[in-house]
């Protein structure tokens, strides 16, 4: 088995997949804790569908570099969603649901009407499930992921206490003079960036899993914010790494294998949490 792995790791694309996979898992798990606690668990789903719609538009317009279209549209959607969270007539969950379903439908519709490809369902399937994208990463993608992950980690190190306060009690933190809306904006923008990147890894349908599972598992086990964040990051990295290795060995789809690992981890955490809370 070790020999098979060594043989695979001789290929650069396998090494790239592992590096990018682990970094994206790390970034999304850090954000995940805040998003889950803010009741935005579904934002990953919503934004990835928006990104899917944007990809459809980029494909139709025949733009060489999808990122230039996808990134700004997704960031705008994220800002809109997180900003309208509390104060508007359409509540957070409804806004996410609306955007998610709407973007998916319009994206698919546009692809069908204007597509030049002969294999639409194949294209759609690979966008949604990220079936092969992770194995076709270029060196640029790897550097981009490393850059983004460093930004996410830096933001968390520098603004950790502020993110905690804004997540726990937005009104109070505003009352003490913290610009809560600025931190919400910051969270929205990096969420969007991470999600667009993560689409390369697990595809748009499975991004939610990367955001919510590590956070929920960590919350079963730990009771302070710091411990939950750290545990969630560690779990997410472990699941992503084992998921990628298993998918290579068993030749299963990468995204679904990682999510299966995350689900298993949640199950273990759930029972461990039950046992420790009883004793």
């Amino acid at each position: 088995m070790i020999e098979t792995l060594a043989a695979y790791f001789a290929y650069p694309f396998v090494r790239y997949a592992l590096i990018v996979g682990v970094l994206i898992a790390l970034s999304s798990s850090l954000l995940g804790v805040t998003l889950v606690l803010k009741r935005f668990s579904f934002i990953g789903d919503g934004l990835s569908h928006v990104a899917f719609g944007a990809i459809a538009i980029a494909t139709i317009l025949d733009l060489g570099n999808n990122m230039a279209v996808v990134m700004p549209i997704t960031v705008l959607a994220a800002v809109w969603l997180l900003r309208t969270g509390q104060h508007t007539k359409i509540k957070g969950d409804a806004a996410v649901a609306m955007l998610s379903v709407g973007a998916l439908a319009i994206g698919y519709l546009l692809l069908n009407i204007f597509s030049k490809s002969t294999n639409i369902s194949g294209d759609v399937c690979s966008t949604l499930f990220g079936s092969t994208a992770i194995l076709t990463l270029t060196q640029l993608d790897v550097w981009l992921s490393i850059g983004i992950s460093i930004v996410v980690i830096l933001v968390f190190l520098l603004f950790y206490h502020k993110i905690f306060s804004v997540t726990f009690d937005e009104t109070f933190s505003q009352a003490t003079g913290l610009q809560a809306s600025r931190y919400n904006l910051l969270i929205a923008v990096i969420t969007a960036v991470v999600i667009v990147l993560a689409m390369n890894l697990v595809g748009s349908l499975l991004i939610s899993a990367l955001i919510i599972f590590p956070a929920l598992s960590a919350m079963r086990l730990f009771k302070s914010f710091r411990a939950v964040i750290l545990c969630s990051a560690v779990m997410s990295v472990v699941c992503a790494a084992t998921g990628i290795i298993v998918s290579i060995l068993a030749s299963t789809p990468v995204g679904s294998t990682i999510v299966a690992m995350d689900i298993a981890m949640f199950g273990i955490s759930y029972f461990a949490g039950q046992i420790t809370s009883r004793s």
Partner: protein
Amino acid sequence: MAQLTCKDVTLGYDGKPVVHGLNFSVEQGDYLCILGENGSGKSTLVKTLLNLHPVMSGKIETGDGLSASEIGYLPQQTLVQRDFPASVTEIVRSGLLGRCGMRPFYTKREKALADENMRKLGISHLSGRCYRELSGGQQQRVLLARALCATRKMLLLDEPVAGLDPNATREMYELVASLNRDDGITIIMVSHDIAAAMQYAKHILYIGEPLFWGSTGEFRDSGLARHFQDESRHHCTWSEED
């Protein structure tokens, strides 16, 4: 000069005025209770005092060395907080953030201040515990310690006893009274509990028709007290859901 002065203030949401002609002031060491029915504009007033919501007209001034971001605020609990994984220390310390500016960590001195406030409110032994596992009364003490970290001058408490059992309610009132008496902290409390307001407050602000602001004795004599008591009894089944 008063710590807080409201001059002819009109409050409202989305261009619709809720309260007209609000005039009152709060002196250092005062204990003001804000009474009024649900929907009368109490929460809007709280948000406005904290500078989270603009006045429609009129002026709110702070003075006597107090700035709006130095008001320690005890909000009503939100749904998010009920299952939030956070230790008591983490929450209390978050009250210090106003002093931090862009600095990403707390200094030793700030941490010591947080510890001192936890001691003052008798929650030192809970410091490592998880917030969501505490009783309602303990949770309110944690949030009160956090508010104290943000201020040494004025506390603004939004229905601090909502959802507490009678024992915890009495303890909470005594705690607030002792902060006012022993530490000279100015108290502004939004409340439904008129009996407690009459017992502890020095001044009463009644928001409704008519507006009233004056000492507790004047409020008792005005007959408004009885009127409000009847009204709130009438509405109590509604206010429970609030």
